[in-house]
């Protein structure tokens, strides 16, 4: 219980710091982006002063001193009110995020799941065959794919599989010819479009899971209870999966829970390379159009996801590992 309370306090503090950082970044940087943006609205010239004033209010040109601004800002954040997007003008930031989020969650979530499952299993194999050729091949390949710039892998995949071989579409998330909805042709087009970006994410992230699991396994292999199990004459495969892997999995599971938090913001470049209409692509568009309200809204959403995932990872750890429960603090 004490552990839980401590975690909740840390969660709230982290959220508060993240929101405050988000508030401070634009105010600490020299220049005033919002005024620049307002000036650009001015240049268009077609708007009446009253319309300008309305936009200024919506875009968050705030009055009063910093503390009043901060208080106002906190109130808006609590209500998920991030203002209006400059690029996609009549739409609010919340609306834009809500429409991009499902694509990212689907694509990166599924890829992360596949990558974690496959990487962990291969890591167990590598550890069991430590020093043999299978281990050498697996660890070498994964340390190589681990250092790929993953957007570059995406570029290569687009070139070979989409541009040269025409197996997959070049960009986008679905075929616009089909109406959006839960019917066969649309779903097939979504899977077809999602395959390449998903493959890119899996290949570039699987190495981390593999190497991590391999190291955990090797550490656990030297525990006394493993020695005992072997001495009892249990089959080595049984020992590997039921004794070693189960315990070695714990750190990887925490990593997995944290990775789920990074799902939302973790594959910006992949989405950009494939023009995939998720959060990353939206952030990119916000940045190149200097759409500050949208940019800040997205950043805040990404941070909140990570912080929440981190919190649940901590809780899950307690659930899976009784030793932490008895250990008390931290």
């Amino acid at each position: 219980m004490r552990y839980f309370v401590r975690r909740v306090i840390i969660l709230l503090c982290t959220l508060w710091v993240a929101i405050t950082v988000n508030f401070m970044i634009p105010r600490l940087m020299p220049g005033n982006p919002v005024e620049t943006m307002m000036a650009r609205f001015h240049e268009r010239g077609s708007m009446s002063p009253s319309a300008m004033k309305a936009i200024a209010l919506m875009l968050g040109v705030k009055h009063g001193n910093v503390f009043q601004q901060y208080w106002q800002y906190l109130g808006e954040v609590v209500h998920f009110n991030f203002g209006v997007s400059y690029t996609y003008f009549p739409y609010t930031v919340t609306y834009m995020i809500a429409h991009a989020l499902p694509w990212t969650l689907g694509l990166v979530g599924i890829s992360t799941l596949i990558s974690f499952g496959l990487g962990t299993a291969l890591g167990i194999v590598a550890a069991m065959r430590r020093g043999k050729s299978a281990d050498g091949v697996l660890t070498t390949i994964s340390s190589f794919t681990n250092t790929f710039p993953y957007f570059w892998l995406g570029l290569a995949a687009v070139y070979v599989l989409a541009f040269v071989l025409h197996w997959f579409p070049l960009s986008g998330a679905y075929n616009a010819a089909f109406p959006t909805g839960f019917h066969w042709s649309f779903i097939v087009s979504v899977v077809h479009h999602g395959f390449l970006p998903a493959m890119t994410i899996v290949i570039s992230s699987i190495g981390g899971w593999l190497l991590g699991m391999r190291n955990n396994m090797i550490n656990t292999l030297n525990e006394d209870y493993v020695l005992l199990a072997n001495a009892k004459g249990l089959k080595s495969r049984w020992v590997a999966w039921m004794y070693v892997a189960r315990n070695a999995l714990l750190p990887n599971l925490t990593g997995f829970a944290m990775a789920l938090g990074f799902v939302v913001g973790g594959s910006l470049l992949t989405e950009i390379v494939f023009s995939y209409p998720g959060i990353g692509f939206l952030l990119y568009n916000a940045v190149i159009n200097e759409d500050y309200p949208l940019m800040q809204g997205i950043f805040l959403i990404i941070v909140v996801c990570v912080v929440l995932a981190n919190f649940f990872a901590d809780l899950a750890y307690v659930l899976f590992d009784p030793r932490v429960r008895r250990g008390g603090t931290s």
Partner: protein
Amino acid sequence: MSIGTLAKQPKAPARARSRGAVAEIASILWRNRKARVGIVMLGIFVAVSIFGAWLVPYSPKDSSFAAMAGPSWQHWLGTTQNGQDVLSELIYGTRVSILVSFSVGAIATFLAMLIGITAGYVSGWVDEVLSFLTNVFLVLPGLPLLIVLASYAPGRGMTLIVIIIGFTGWPWGARVLRSQVVTLRSRDFVTAARLAGDSVGRIISREVVPNMLSLVMANFLGASTAGLLAAVGLEFLGFGNPSQISWGSMLYWAQNSSALLQGQWAWILAPGLCIAFFGMSLVLINFGFDAVSNPRLQEESR
């Protein structure tokens, strides 16, 4: 081998310990096959970055060639949209990219040591505050934060990228180093030094740091790898200085002139492979450092 020669010197114990530590780490590294391959690869990259100016077939600024030409005997990797030789750019860009990678690693590692060691050694409320700060920075997502910071920052350029990535890259290392210092703090030789009246600074630099040198180095290599990848990502998005030749800016230009759709695959392939191989050399060396700090991972020699 060098440990044996050091053992013969009876005097200057502290000195010998730290020098012995370096020699021992070096020998474990070299005995580890993966680390040896990594060291050789890194050596090649460093040599290219130093002697690149003499290795390039053409000046990388020379734009007198036919633009967007595919690979040929004159231009092994083809030419750019401005008619520059891609291979010359690649060789020339090695220096900037390696420099960026190692400067990011150095900044991040310095901050990680500063914060991690302070938190671990001082303990109490200082530790609480610093650990909390570390945990907060740990969960701030890297690339989105970098993009937001870079887009608010005035001007663009490599120095800015290095500073931003360096100053956001320390928390992981700080956490690892802190927990190591916590275990070292209560060890006998540290207590002995404290009882002998050594100053805190001396204890940390003479007793604590030499005993976690491999962790510090591993952290430096990890931060350098991550730093290069982050810098390349930011450059690719156009946050760098596109007129400065580096692997990242090459990818930026290649993408912006849709090199792939015009069949210029070598232009994209080469910088990406260089980044991957450079990163891999650091990761391989890191396998060796893992073996130094965790004897269980040590390979039987060869």
